[in-house]
């Protein structure tokens, strides 16, 4: 096994107990959720829907994944006692960084998908026996899951940067920073729109609501100028932003030293 493989192995070995506990908790939540839904369906005579796995999957993918990503560097970079072993481990800073980055960005979504699928394979026959529900296995090969993976890749990179940038409270500080950044950008956008519209329409400017979401902005087909902007937006969102976060996070890892430990 090469050095990078050894680092991956170290990451898995050191957190396998916590991850096993997490997987077991996830299974129990899915089982409990399915069982409660079955009870409700049986006694309220409402038809049983197949939506449990698909509705819970994004929660575990994003919330779990982003928390794990936020904590991935906490001990190795910022713990006074724990930092030393990682810094002195015979591998390059890039290898150490990538081992954590790859596991949280790619291995975690795959692992959680496998856990969801296996959980459905175990839970569904039990539900069939107990309540006579139809067997509906979790299907990971859908466009919705693929889009969630793509969006997770973007947000994971942001939280990866937060994990290496903040010395403690990584997850909450990243959310807080995103909130502040969001408010600042929205204010700038609002000012920009006000100015542009004032120039064009003068004092007869009327306010109106604009409702949009990232999904509609990025994934609905469009042509012409809007289509071009959408492609540029996609490149910025899915490629430039994550790469910027990964590169910046790596530089933080490379320059970390004992004085950063808290």
């Amino acid at each position, binding site marked *: 096994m090469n050095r990078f493989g*050894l680092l991956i192995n170290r990451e898995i070995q050191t957190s396998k107990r916590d991850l096993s506990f997490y997987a077991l908790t996830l299974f129990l939540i899915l089982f409990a959720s399915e069982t409660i839904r079955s009870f409700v369906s049986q006694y309220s005579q409402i038809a049983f829907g197949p939506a449990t796995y698909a509705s819970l999957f994004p929660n575990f993918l994003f919330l779990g994944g982003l928390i794990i990503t936020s904590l991935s560097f906490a001990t190795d970079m910022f713990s006074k006692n724990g930092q030393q*072993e990682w*810094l*002195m481990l*015979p591998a390059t800073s890039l290898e150490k960084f990538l081992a954590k980055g790859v596991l949280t960005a790619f291995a975690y979504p795959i692992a959680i998908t496998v856990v969801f699928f296996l959980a459905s394979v175990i839970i569904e026959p039990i539900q069939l026996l107990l309540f006579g529900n139809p067997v509906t296995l979790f299907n990971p090969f859908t466009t919705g899951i693929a889009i969630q993976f793509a969006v997770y890749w973007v947000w994971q990179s942001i939280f990866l940067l937060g994990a290496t940038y903040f010395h403690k409270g990584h997850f909450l500080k990243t959310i807080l920073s995103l909130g502040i950044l969001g408010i600042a950008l929205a204010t700038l956008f609002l000012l920009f729109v006000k100015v542009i519209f004032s120039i064009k329409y003068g004092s007869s400017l009327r306010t109106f609501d604009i409702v949009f979401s990232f999904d509609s902005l990025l994934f609905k087909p469009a042509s012409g100028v809007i289509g071009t902007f959408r492609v540029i937006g996609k490149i910025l969102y899915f490629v430039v932003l994550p790469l910027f976060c990964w590169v910046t996070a790596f530089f933080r890892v490379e320059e970390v*030293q004992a*004085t950063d430990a808290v």
Partner: protein
Amino acid sequence: MANEIESGQTNLTEVVSTNNSVILMQDIGFSYGKTPLFTHLDLEIKQGNIYGLLGKNGSGKTTLLKLISGQLFPDEGFTSALGFDPMRRKPAMLSEIFYLPEEFPLPKMKATEYLKMRSVFYPRFDNLMFAQYCKDFELDMQQNLNEMSLGQKKKLLLAFGLASNTSLLFLDEPTNGLDIPSKRQFRQTVASAMTEDRTFIISTHQVRDMENLIDPLIILHDGKIIFNDTVDSITDKYVMALVTTDPQQDEKVVYKEKVLGGWMVLRQRSEQEEGNEGQPLDLETLFNVVVEQSTRVQGGMR
């Protein structure tokens, strides 16, 4: 910048091969925030010795070890460890350095699993040697690391470090947490693991635990190395003696300490005292002498 470092590295490799130096620090400056710790610090460590790093609390012993191993970056100056720039933390350098910190967490796993996971990073790790050290330290490899006491963990990491066969071994307060038999075992094991191509630096307050093990000594005081030499270099020039009268008037006395039955004094050797071994000079006294002299005379004893 990179070229400067590379050329520095080449020069230093030459220095290592000719002068037997494994660590070289020149004009090092380091501060914690605005509080300076080291100013113009110079240090040379030669291969094949067990160095004792002594200093008062807060004198910077651990900081010095971290600067040498690349865990801290100096504000100024030049550092080389085994011909490498420590700030780059190259795997080739890291695989030749083992650092045993004073405090450390270990993952929740069995000792055997830990060994399997970590030993692969050290190309010269010797499993047989490790098994022998564990036997000497009475360690159970099937035990979970989180169930081990601090002393047991320390012995495990020490056995690991010695078996890794790295060229440099930094031990930061290694006898803290060890019971009395383990301290003796520690001295024996370290002495037996020592070879000509290895260098140990042991930072400690427990000088009595290290008696007859560490030599030369490095003494840190007021942000500088005030002593970097062998114990013999002191005993060649000075002699320790027990006197019954107050040696206040004796100009040759450089250090005195009130003891039962008189004063223990360290005085410059006179011609008549050539060959007189006097009382044995313990490390604690030597440390006190050097620090006291350094306070009187800027620059200390070299």
